[in-house]
């Protein structure tokens, strides 16, 4: 096989993979509108995906908020601009750090879990068992996870933003003896409605969509037993992280 053949083969494989992903995603969306989805299944997933992610999202954003504020406060105090630290932290957390880090944490925790669970179900014939019982895996397995992620990501981002911002306040007050009133007042002056809502309303559902569809698609395409399940989980986290970073850039560019 020469280099041209190899390039052609590789290109075809990429198109095949992307095409399959698009078809899978289209089927998930179609099933959401054409089949009966049990609300109980969606609630179960919302609890697993959302509620159980709150602690890790909280801890992550607490430290992100703390480290960001400590660095910003150090430099801004030197420049005599300590009064606007609240606004700067607010900008960073609500626009970028909260949504992005919440997405990264959920990708690692939930994306890998979904991919592993569905991959294991695939290689142990559980998905075939569902189909053999005339149960549609799309309405039973995939759509509840898809809906749950799209609904829970904005909630997780609100929580992440709040924790990140408050952790910043803690550091501002404790290490730099800042005034809490100045922190809140600069934030309220500098942030507008779009800054506060865009991360939640636009980035949240988009990140949820990316995490759900990539994790389920790579899970359902798992082959070769336990090794395959591990590979799928790794691929899932890598693919979701890259997608989230790229999409986040374009969303931020377009929105702000």
């Amino acid at each position, binding site marked *: 096989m020469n280099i041209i053949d190899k390039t052609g083969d590789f290109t075809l494989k990429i198109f095949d993979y992307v095409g399959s992903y698009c078809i899978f995603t289209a089927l998930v969306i179609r099933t959401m509108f054409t089949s009966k989805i049990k609300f109980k299944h969606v609630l179960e997933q919302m609890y697993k995906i959302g509620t159980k992610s709150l602690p890790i999202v909280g801890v992550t954003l607490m430290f992100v908020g703390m480290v960001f504020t400590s660095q910003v406060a150090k430099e801004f105090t030197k420049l005599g601009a300590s009064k606007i630290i609240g606004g700067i932290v607010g900008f960073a957390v609500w626009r970028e750090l909260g949504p992005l880090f919440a997405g990264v944490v959920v990708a690692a925790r939930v994306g890998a879990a979904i991919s592993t669970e569905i991959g294991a179900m695939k290689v142990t014939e559980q998905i*075939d068992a569902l189909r053999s019982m005339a149960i*549609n895996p799309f309405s039973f397995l995939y759509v509840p996870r898809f809906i749950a992620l799209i609904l829970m990501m904005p909630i997780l981002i609100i929580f992440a933003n709040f924790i990140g911002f408050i952790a910043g306040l803690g550091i501002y007050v404790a290490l730099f003896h800042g005034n809490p009133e100045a922190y809140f007042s600069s934030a309220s002056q500098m942030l507008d409605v779009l800054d506060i809502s865009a991360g939640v309303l636009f980035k949240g559902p988009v990140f949820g969509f990316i995490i759900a569809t990539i994790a389920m698609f790579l899970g359902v395409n798992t082959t070769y037993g336990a090794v395959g399940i591990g590979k799928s989980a790794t691929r899932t986290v890598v693919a979701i992280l890259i997608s989230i970073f790229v999409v986040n850039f374009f969303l931020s560019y377009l929105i702000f």
Partner: protein
Amino acid sequence: MSQELKGNSKDSKNIIIIKDLVKTYGGQKILAGVDFKVKRNNKTTIIGASGCGKSTLLRLILGLEKFQEGEIFIEGQPISKLDEDELNIIRLRFGMVFQSAALFDSLTVGENVGLILKEHTKLKPSEIAKKVKEKLDMVGLADTYAQMPAALSGGMKKRVAFARAIVNDPSVLLFDEPTTGLDPITSTTIENLIKDLTDTIHATSIVVTHQISTILNTSEKIIMIHEGKAIKTEGPKKIMKSKNKMVYKFVNGLVDTAPKIV
């Protein structure tokens, strides 16, 4: 071709008719024109070397995979012409026991067995629980109702899978390697269950296996898949002395029926 196939579908004695079935994977023919019929209420066993396409055949019968040529008629209906919803109606007449048992890890034994009733009937939870317990009792596992599958042994998982397969009283039972990997005593228990359960619910059974004891204990008719084709064999009483060279060598474990290792 299609008219010829249609002509064969009007056969009330046979619940399943497989005609000229071809299945390929990546250009390689696994099944290369398989033909056979399964009579109603008959116990058919499909034998053959590992990788010859036996399990694939079961998956094709259930419509879990597509075939390239030929046709499978279930109760006279050509399944290649059916959409997923129509296939689902047919699937509800089948009960399948997978090689790995394929129990859902996140559900209890009771929920596993009752899932099909929960999803496809309007029975109350108490009625479902009663039916599930009845079927678990038939496989000797009534006390496992609230347990998780992970707490069960391989043989117990298979028996739960049996209970799940018969919970809606299907007319056809499919068993994929039901005794593979089990000790001789558990295998005999499973073989007895296959016979008893099939008789109790008046079902037709198709067992895919390469275990001699299963072949001898659960069959009325035996078909061997060899080089992608179906070979008719003698019944369980005479198969060990089969006049067909391939069948004789396979059931007696003579090496040249094994797939070639290149």
